[in-house]
């Protein structure tokens, strides 16, 4: 038992001592080049991330949509009234027809 305890303590000591035997690792001679590439890439991405073009495209789309709607007369009050009148008339006609159909069915 005493021997086993000694062995465990010896193993711990040997393992703790391995830290003293770790050798220094030399750096990568191409690191500067790689870093320059990465920094350059980052700059490019940062520039392309500026959303000026995206914003311009969004505004263009809004403008074109608005223009198309105005051209189609969507905001024209007279045409709206006309549309409403047409809808009401059609509804009246349809409902009268439905009533007649209903009567004829019941007959």
């Amino acid at each position: 038992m005493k021997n086993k305890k000694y062995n465990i303590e010896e193993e711990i000591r040997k393992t703790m001592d391995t830290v003293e035997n770790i050798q220094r690792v030399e750096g990568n001679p191409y690191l500067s080049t790689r870093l320059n590439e990465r920094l350059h890439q980052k700059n490019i991405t940062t520039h392309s991330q500026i959303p000026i073009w995206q914003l311009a495209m969004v505004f263009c789309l809004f403008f074109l949509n608005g223009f198309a709607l105005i051209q189609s007369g969507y905001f024209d009050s007279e045409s709206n009234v006309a549309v409403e009148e047409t809808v009401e008339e059609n509804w009246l006609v349809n409902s009268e027809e439905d009533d007649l159909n209903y009567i004829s069915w019941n007959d």
Partner: protein
Amino acid sequence: MNDNQIIPKLKERNENAFKELVDTFQEKVLNTCLGFVPNLHDAEDIVQDVFIEVYRSIDKFRGDSKLSTWIYRITTTKCLEHLRAKKRQKRKSFFQSLIGMHENADRIKAYDFNHPGVLLENQERTKILYEAIEKLPENQRVAFTLHKIEGLSYQEITEIMENSLSSVESLMFRAKKNLKKSLGDFYKKNMLG
């Protein structure tokens, strides 16, 4: 070039000054990274992240500490971030394996041991030691790694960790005690079992 000469040039984004900084510090940064993450591939990735961070945030460096202290602080932070990310990944893959999505569960380990500075005959033991270091609380791990693996003095560690000398001493004492306990448990289990 000393700190006072190189810092203004770095702030001007002078490429030669940056190259000199990389040449001066890359070995220290790499060996510190290997102290935390004993895998050459991962450590080299962290080294790149460290220097990118130095380049990006040199304007924030006020000069209250030495440039080397600041770089060591960034290195430690990056290494701990890397280890936390690996832990999260490991936990995620564990839960995925529980619910049956175990595609990557076996592949994701904390790291594969690949430290070029460890002699072949010491590899098994050093791996066991690293596994024990991994179980230490973060601040004990930082103090132990910087002192025992990177060979920094307590005073330097005090400046890097922004702690008092007595707390660094206490961290080192507890780190060694915990490591011995952890290794003792490991050997008891393996020698008796």
